[in-house]
């Protein structure tokens, strides 16, 4: 096992990190390693046949898992990954032991991400498939412009509160907000402009939402039995990942937001 480094990181160094290999698992110490060399090492380990890459001492390095393809691949992160983690990712599973920065799962195609903490802004921007589970709070514009295509239906389930523009421009997929592991109890479940510009997909919020905070393109409903069928496996997986009580989470009614039109701007233009 690697030792945990202490003290501040004094700049990243552009040298290849040490990689140790044990069976299917490669372990990389990311302490002070520049993102480019770190990610090269991750890709290299997978190219060498590793199935799991364990990253230690991660401290803000960007693009971990970026563009990596392969269903049975797994990245375990100790520390806090930097921006655009799992951007364009196509299949692997990523687990962090703490929080993640902005842009997680940006334009992601497939794969699963478990974040054992909070996550920053624009999580799941333009995400087309795969699943993201966050234990706690998320930042601004989460799930913005999420899409769905054929059998690809992206799912994001956030355990805490979300800031403004949750699900903005959403075009497909399922976005769930549970309000369980919140850091700031005085924050509302969801910030203003939730679902504004939404023209596809569905948002489920555990509890009630102030209609003023919801985009004018959304219809507001109480989740019914059909919805619970959609929610059940998602919440189940979230509870299993973060050790929460499934029945308790589902005991409270959910609010459902869906777009009133797939063509929000169909009547905007003068015939010419």
């Amino acid at each position, binding site marked *: 096992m690697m030792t945990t480094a202490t003290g501040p990181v004094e700049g990243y160094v552009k040298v290849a990190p040490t990689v140790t290999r044990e069976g299917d698992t490669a372990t990389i110490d990311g302490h002070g390693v520049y993102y*480019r060399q770190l*990610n090269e090492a991750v890709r290299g380990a997978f190219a060498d046949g590793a199935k799991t890459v364990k990253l230690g001492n991660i401290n803000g390095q*960007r*693009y971990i898992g*970026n*563009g*990596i*393809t392969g269903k049975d691949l797994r990245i375990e992160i100790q520390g806090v990954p930097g*921006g*655009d983690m799992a*951007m*364009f*990712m*196509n299949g692997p599973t990523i687990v962090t032991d703490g929080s993640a920065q*902005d*842009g997680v799962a*940006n*334009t992601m*195609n497939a794969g699963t991400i478990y974040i054992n903490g909070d996550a920053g802004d*624009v999580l799941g*921007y*333009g995400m*087309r498939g795969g699943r993201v589970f966050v234990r706690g709070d998320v930042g601004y*514009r989460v799930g*913005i*412009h999420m*899409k*769905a*295509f054929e059998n*690809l239906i992206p799912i994001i389930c956030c355990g805490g509160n979300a800031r403004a523009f949750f699900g*903005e*421009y959403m*075009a*497909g997929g399922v976005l769930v907000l549970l309000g369980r592991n919140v850091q700031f109890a005085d924050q509302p479940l969801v910030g203003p402009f939730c679902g504004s*510009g939404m*023209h*596809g997909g569905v948002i489920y919020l555990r509890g009630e939402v102030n209609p003023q905070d919801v985009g004018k393109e959304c219809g507001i409903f109480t989740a019914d039995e059909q919805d619970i069928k959609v929610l059940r496996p998602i919440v189940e997986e979230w509870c299993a990942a973060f050790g929460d009580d499934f029945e308790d989470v589902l005991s409270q009614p959910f609010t459902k937001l869906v777009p009133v039109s*797939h*063509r*929000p*701007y*169909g*009547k*905007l*233009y*003068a*015939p*010419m």
Partner: protein
Amino acid sequence: MLTSFIQPEFKVEIDRDKCIKCGRCVQQCGWGVYSFAERPIPDDSKCRACHRCVTYCPAHCITIKRNELVFRDSENWSPALRKAVWRQSESGGVMLTSMGNDKPYQRIFDYLVLDACQVTNPSIDPLREPMELKTFIGRKPDSVEVESDGEGGYRLAPGAGMENNIELATPIMFGGMSYGSVSLNVHKSLAMAASRLGITMNTGEGGLHADLYPYTDNVIVQCASGRFGVDADYLNRGVAIEIKVGQGAKPGIGGHLPGEKINKEVSTTRMIPQGTDAISPAPHHDIYSIEDLRQLIYSLKEASGYKPVGVKIACVHNVAAIASGVVRAGADYVYLDGFKGGTGAAPQIIRDHVGIPIEIAIAVVDQRLRDEGIRNQASIIAAGSIRSSADMAKAIALGADAVAIGSAALIALGCHVCQSCHTGCCSWGITTQKPELTRRLDPEWGAERLTNLVHAWSHELQEILGALGVNAVESLRGSRERLRAIGLDASTCEILGVKPAGM
């Protein structure tokens, strides 16, 4: 009540003596102008003056005329403005249009003239002497190392820092036009021509159709705010990736492909469901700063094995400062799109009133990057109404590395600039997805016309270079001393860095 005050813009006249009543006009018109009852009967109000019927009438008996209705003169209330008010008071809608700005702003290129050699310095005949047009797009090293090639010559030393450049046989690229806004046959024509010419076509923001895979050595893939069709595979296929921040025809405005244009093939290529609107938000929501732009540039590089990444911006007031930021963010080229650039659909009010001319933008960006000592870090691509090889030569003399053409390419394919692309009914089969219309454009025929056009412009550029007495386009680049202005005001000359003729 009368439903509309607006009278037809054009008059469709058929010479009845010559008409053979074949009905071809009925079949050719994409907008349903003609009905047929023993003879063709045109409905003037639907005509867009695209000339499809005129071109295909075997009897040459159709004429399209302007409907010369006289309005009481008012320099202030032009007939166009009166009609716009009527149209909007009828519908309450935003007026949508297409192609580029058609207002009579000064076209600066037309007020610039090129130099030539006389007496004291010889001009060069490009037909007999080599004339290099090859252009490299991308970051250039701060200094160059050469080594002996063992045959008495020199070559770039390996690792000289030129590896990540896109090589163009001539300083012309096809600008980004998405599949969805244009037809697949247009994309195929562009891709085939680009690969024959050794230049690049650009997917625009609608993804890359599998039929284009054989040509991807000559394809730049675009990543816009809607992220349509963007995945790791897509990013790895092109020779370069372009982040589209803005478009000259609609700076600050997102894209919006109406659901009617999203058929099965477009939906597969864009990876979105059929029939829903494809909305590109105005900004990329992961870019709120130059630092964020840098994050995206390097994310795209990480995902693509460090391919060149360019950034396309619309030319707006602060374009020099913005371009400087773009270059510092790590872009390998900055694509400047002037306010006369084309579009498949834009609100008319934006198309005609937002942005600045490309000529000014090239000059101020080139100067700014030179002043800051970072001009070598990125190439400048100029677009937004490059209409001829003369425009191209002047753009290069002002400081561009290459030009990109969109409208000119479509005109080569039959576009008559009727400014109706947004209707999706293009009779020429260009900006439509209707199968009965798109099949009118044969990609092989299209590729040949585009190849001819680019060859012709390249030859003309060689003639210009020869007259200037230089033997490589490199020598014209940023050489504003070889330009003079006629009839431009002093401050415009100063901004352009061009002297008035006679000085």
